[in-house]
């Protein structure tokens, strides 16, 4: 019902994060209009993420609502030193989505380690709705993903999309737990490098 859809913004976008942080401060002061504004800014990104994880529109909408409500109730728990508001928000949302996936798996409704590969992610083609900086970051991370050895990518995919624990990944792949831990750590380190470079680059 809100006719103006917000532009996507990215965690490293400090200007955008300053605006988000201001909204969080207003939420701490019980200003509900700030919650509405934060929703307008991040609903689309959050919905896209949880929808991609859950593959169910009703559940994704529930998670979006639960996430923003938690953000409202726990606004004072946001710590700027631990990352951007969007990081905080999307982390809450992803955690809630993974909780649902894990609950389904416990009820045997979800296949063990359902296939949701990184190959499903967006191509590096620029999206007119995003800023140039966002496109650059996406391009770098996608390139890093492509460079990952298959076994590291597999471990990250099972953790990222299915929320499998390292032990569960070890069971699913038939690899020793130590090997899984090492692959996960190395894969994440390789992925975070372009992000770090990207953050330092424009300065």
């Amino acid at each position, binding site marked *: *019902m*809100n006719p103006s859809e917000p532009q*996507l913004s*990215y*965690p490293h976008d400090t200007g955008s994060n300053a605006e988000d942080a201001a909204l969080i401060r207003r939420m701490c002061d*019980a200003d*509900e*209009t700030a*919650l*509405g504004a934060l929703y307008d800014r991040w*609903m*689309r*990104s959050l*919905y*896209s*993420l949880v*929808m*991609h994880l859950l593959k169910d*529109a009703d559940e994704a*909408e529930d998670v*979006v*609502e639960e996430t*923003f*409500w938690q953000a*409202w109730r726990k606004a004072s728990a946001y710590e700027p030193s*631990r*990352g*951007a508001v*969007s*990081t905080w928000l*999307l*982390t809450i949302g*992803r*955690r809630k989505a*993974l909780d649902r996936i894990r609950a389904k798996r416990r009820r045997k409704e979800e296949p063990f380690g359902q296939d949701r590969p*990184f190959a499903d*992610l*967006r191509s590096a083609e620029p*999206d007119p709705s995003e800023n140039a900086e966002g496109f650059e*970051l*996406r391009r770098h*991370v*996608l390139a890093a993903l492509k460079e990952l050895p298959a076994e590291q990518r597999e471990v*990250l995919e099972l*953790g*990222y999309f299915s*929320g*499998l*624990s*390292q032990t569960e*990944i070890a069971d699913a792949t038939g690899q020793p737990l130590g090997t899984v*831990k090492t692959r*996960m*750590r190395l894969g*994440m*380190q390789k*992925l*975070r490098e372009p*992000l*770090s470079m990207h953050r330092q680059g424009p300065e």
Partner: protein
Amino acid sequence: MIDMNHEEAFSELAAVALDVVPTEVGDAVRAHAAVCPECGPELTAMEATVVALGELVPSQQMNRGRGAGIRSRLVMRARAERETHSAGSEGPPDLSRGVASLTGLGHRITPVSQRTLVVEGGKQKTPSQPLAARPLSYESKDRSLVKWLAMAATLALVATAAQLMRVTADRNSMRADIALRDTASLDTASRNDSLTALVAERDAMIAAISGSDVKVVALTNESARQPLGRMFWNRTSNDWTMVTYDLRSPRPGRTYQVWLITDDAKISAGTFKPGADGKAVMHANYALARNALRAVAITEEPEGGVPAPTGPMVVSGTATS
């Protein structure tokens, strides 16, 4: 909490960032990272990477009506919560008082310094006073004194044992009482939270439909004698509240969608399904020019809603000026 050294915490950073470790491991790693100059920034960077991966998923658009409905519910709940707190806030309960009254420590346990011991014809002496101030001489006393002392010792022993049993029972009873009251207190707090939220929601709804500037549109169809629902538009707060009374369920795989009709647009106000009793309540917040509304309509549409009405009209109502 698990005690974790630097190497152990560092090896778990990726898994913690991906949120695929047990809570206790995550807590231990985060506790270490909070004070570790190496792990802290590394964890932050990895968490940002996880979020960046989330940004790479294909962009998906939530149904606008449902998105607006969620937004409206969130803002209304937040407003209701704020108003409830500002109106009835008495501050957090004084837990220390609660605990003191629950345990009854103040009147059940007497400090050692105030305890007394009754000896010798009712005269009170504190334990610090010597009980054997008078030397006893077996030679000068007859056997009755020994007998008396033995009886007194036995009585003291029995009394002490009884006292010990009573205090132990009393303590156990208090522990059970505290546990019971703690449980009851948690249940009560939980129920109180739910009821507070419910009351706040009802208050917000009453405010939305009873303001001085509320336009009401009766929703009906040709076969109904009475309105099947009403739409309340609070033109001051831009809150829309729709109530239906006797609406049959949509067909399987279909949903009802509400439309605000103006001269040049049909604006989706969200989708809903009535309960088994035909009742439904829906909220939305949307700014519309005061005289722009021409009608409100409900159509039956595919699950998830559609950008423009396609299905049969179920009920509608004309907005009179």
